[in-house]
C-alpha cells in the first residue's frame, strides 16, 4: 500500500495546477453544501422552535376522538347503532385538578389548566373574531413562553386590571389599541364583557399574534357562559420531541383527546419532509457536480499514464493494485478538498449568520438562522469522498484494463 500511495502522491504532486483545480472543485462543493445544509436546517429549526415555544407541547381537550361505544354494542354483535343524539352534558374536563395532579406525578414537564373559547372583539367599529384563552398566570409560566414574549406589560398584570387581557401586537395594531385601552369582548351566547388591555405580546407567528387573546380563567369562563369550566389542559415537556409518545399515554390514561404539537402541525411537518427531500437532492447534485472535477483529472492522468500503467502491469503489478493508485489519487484530492471545504463551509455559515433580513410576516429584522452541526461536516465529507472515489474508479478501471503489450508495441 505504501508503494501505491507513493506512486499516487507522486502523480498528484507533480501536477500541482491540475490537482489544485480538482481540490478547489471539491472544496467548493463541500463548502457550499455545508452552508446550504446549515442554512436550511437552521431556518427549519428556528421555525420549529418558534412553533414549539408558542404553543403547548400537548393539549388535552374535553372531547373524545370517537363516539363512546354503546353498552348494547358491546354486549351484542348484531346490534349496530348510529346517529345517537348527544346527551346535553356540561362541557369541560371533569375534575381537572385531580387529573392535573395525576399527570404531574409522571409526565416529564408541567401542566396548567385553561378555558378556551372563541369570541368577537369589538372596538371602534371593527369586529374581529379571536381565540380567547383563560389562564392561571402562576401556572402559565410553567407551560408556555408567554411571559418572555411580552412586549408591553407583564403576565401578572392580568390580575391587576379589571377583566384584563393580553393581546398580540399585530391584533393591537389592527385595532389601533394600546395597553390600558378598553375593548369589548362578545361571547358566543351574546355575553359582552368590557376588558382592559393589560399587555401586548409577540409570539413570532403572525397567525397567533393576530388572533390570540389571553385573560384570567374567570373572564374567559364568563364569555363561555360556563363558570368554573376548564376545557383544556396544556402540557409543556422538558423534551418537546417526546410529545407524541406522552400524548398517547395521556390519552390512554384520561380518555380525553390529547394532541401533540406534531399532530397539530402534521401538514406543516410533512411539508418539511418534502422540503428536506428537495434540499438533499440539490446538495447531492452539488457534490456530484463537484466530483466531476476529480473525474476529469483522473481521466487525464490515466490517459497520460497509459504507458506507466502498461509498465507496472508488465512488471507484475496486479490490475486492482494499479487501479487502486488512481483511487488513492482521487482520495488525496478528495480529502484535502474536503478539509478546505469544511473551512470554507464554516466561514460561509459564519458570514451568512451576520446577515440580517427583514421578515415581512413579523415585521422585524432578524439574523439568518444557521445550524452548526458536526453531522453536516461528516455526512457531506463522506458523500464527497465517495463521489471522488466513484469518479476515479471508472476512468481507472478503463485504463487498467488495457493489455500492456498493446501499449508497449505502440510505444516501440
Amino acid at each position, binding site marked *: 500500500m505504501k*508503494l501505491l500511495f507513493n506512486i499516487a502522491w*507522486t502523480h498528484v504532486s*507533480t501536477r500541482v495546477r491540475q490537482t489544485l483545480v480538482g481540490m478547489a472543485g471539491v472544496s467548493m462543493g463541500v463548502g457550499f453544501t455545508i452552508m446550504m445544509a446549515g442554512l436550511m436546517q437552521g431556518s427549519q429549526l428556528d421555525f420549529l422552535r418558534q412553533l414549539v415555544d408558542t404553543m403547548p407541547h400537548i393539549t388535552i381537550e374535553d372531547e373524545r376522538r370517537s363516539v363512546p361505544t354503546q353498552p348494547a354494542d358491546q354486549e351484542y354483535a348484531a346490534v349496530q347503532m348510529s346517529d345517537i343524539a348527544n346527551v346535553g352534558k356540561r362541557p369541560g374536563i371533569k375534575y381537572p385538578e385531580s387529573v392535573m395532579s395525576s399527570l404531574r406525578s409522571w409526565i416529564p414537564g408541567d401542566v396548567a389548566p385553561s378555558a378556551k373559547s372563541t369570541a368577537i372583539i369589538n372596538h371602534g367599529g371593527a369586529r374581529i373574531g379571536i381565540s380567547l384563552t383563560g389562564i392561571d398566570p402562576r401556572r402559565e409560566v410553567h407551560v408556555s413562553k408567554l411571559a418572555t414574549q411580552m412586549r408591553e406589560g407583564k403576565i401578572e398584570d392580568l390580575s391587576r386590571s379589571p377583566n384584563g387581557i393580553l393581546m398580540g401586537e399585530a391584533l393591537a395594531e389592527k385595532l389601533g389599541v394600546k395597553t390600558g385601552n378598553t375593548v369589548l369582548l362578545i361571547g358566543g351566547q351574546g355575553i359582552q364583557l368590557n376588558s382592559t388591555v393589560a399587555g401586548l405580546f409577540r409570539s413570532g407567528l403572525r397567525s397567533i399574534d393576530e388572533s390570540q387573546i389571553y385573560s384570567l380563567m374567570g373572564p374567559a369562563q364568563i364569555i363561555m357562559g360556563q363558570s368554573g369550566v376548564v376545557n383544556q389542559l396544556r402540557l409543556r415537556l422538558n423534551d418537546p420531541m417526546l410529545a407524541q409518545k406522552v400524548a398517547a399515554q395521556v390519552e390512554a390514561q384520561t380518555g380525553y383527546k390529547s394532541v401533540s404539537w406534531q399532530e397539530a402541525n402534521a401538514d406543516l411537518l410533512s411539508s418539511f419532509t418534502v422540503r428536506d427531500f428537495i434540499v438533499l437532492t440539490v446538495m447531492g447534485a452539488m457534490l456530484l457536480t463537484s466530483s466531476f472535477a476529480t473525474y476529469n483529472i483522473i481521466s487525464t492522468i490515466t490517459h497520460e499514464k497509459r504507458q506507466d500503467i502498461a509498465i507496472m502491469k508488465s*512488471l*507484475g*503489478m496486479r*490490475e486492482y493494485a494499479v487501479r487502486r493508485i488512481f483511487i488513492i489519487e482521487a482520495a488525496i484530492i478528495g480529502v484535502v478538498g474536503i478539509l478546505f471545504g469544511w473551512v470554507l463551509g464554516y466561514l460561509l455559515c459564519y458570514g451568512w449568520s451576520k446577515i440580517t433580513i427583514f421578515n415581512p410576516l413579523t415585521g422585524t429584522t432578524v439574523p439568518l438562522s444557521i445550524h452548526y452541526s458536526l453531522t453536516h461536516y461528516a455526512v457531506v465529507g463522506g458523500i464527497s469522498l465517495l463521489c471522488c472515489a466513484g469518479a476515479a474508479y471508472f476512468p481507472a478501471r478503463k485504463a487498467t484494463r488495457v493489455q500492456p*503489450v498493446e501499449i*508497449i508495441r505502440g510505444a*516501440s
Partner: protein
Amino acid sequence: MSEIALQAVELVRRIEGDVAHTLVNGIDLSVKKGEFLAITGPSGSGKSSLLYLLGLLDAPSEGEVIICGEPTSKLSESERADVRLTKCGFVFQFHFLLPEFTSLDNVLLPMRAAGKMSEPEMRERGLSLLGSLGLGEHANKRPNQLSGGQRQRVAIARALANRPEIIVADEPTGALDTVSTQQVFKILRDIADQGQTVVVVTHDPALAARADRRIHIVDGKIAESTGQGGGEAVCEMAT
C-alpha cells in the same frame, strides 16, 4: 541433462478480426537454465510477439508456455502477473522507467510490489544492483537526468530486482549508441553466465552471434537455429 527454464509447445498467436493474422505460428522451443538465447528476424516476423508470449505479457491463442516446469495457459490474469513479478524480468527497447521516480525507486518498484523484503533490504539490494551496473552515483537521479545507456542499465537493474529465473529483453539496444550497446550486451551476457536465463530479441546479427544460441524467425516460425546452447531446443524449421 540441463534443467529447462522456459519451454514453448505448439505456440500460436493469432489476431482475430476482419482480416485474421497469425503472428506466431506453432513454435516449439526449449531454453535451458543459464542459456543466452537471441531471437532474430525481419520486422513483422513475429519475434517480439514470441517474446511477449514467452514472458506472459500476452496469452497464446493455442499452445502452452511452461516456465520453470509450470504450465501457464490455465493461469488467471492475476496469477500470470505473479509469475511475471517473481520469475520474469523485462527489458524493453525504450527504458520505460517511471519518469517521476529516481533510478533507485524504479529499481525498488518490483521488490516493493512483491513485498517480500524489508525496506532496508530492498534499498541495499537496489543500490547493490545499480552499483554493479556502474550507476551507483546516479541512484537518486531521475530518468531525464540520465543518458540513454544509463537509463537502459537502470531498466536492467529493475528487471533483476526480484532475482527472476528469466530475463526477457525486447531489442534492448535498439535505441542506444554503439558504446552503450556493447555495455548492455555485456551485462546481459554476464547475467546469463551467472546462471539466469536470458532471451533477447535483436536486429543486430553481430550481437546475436554472442548469444549461446540464435533462432531466426520468419513469418511466425523458426526458420533457423544456430549455436551450441541449443542442445535442448526442439526447432521446427520453416518449410
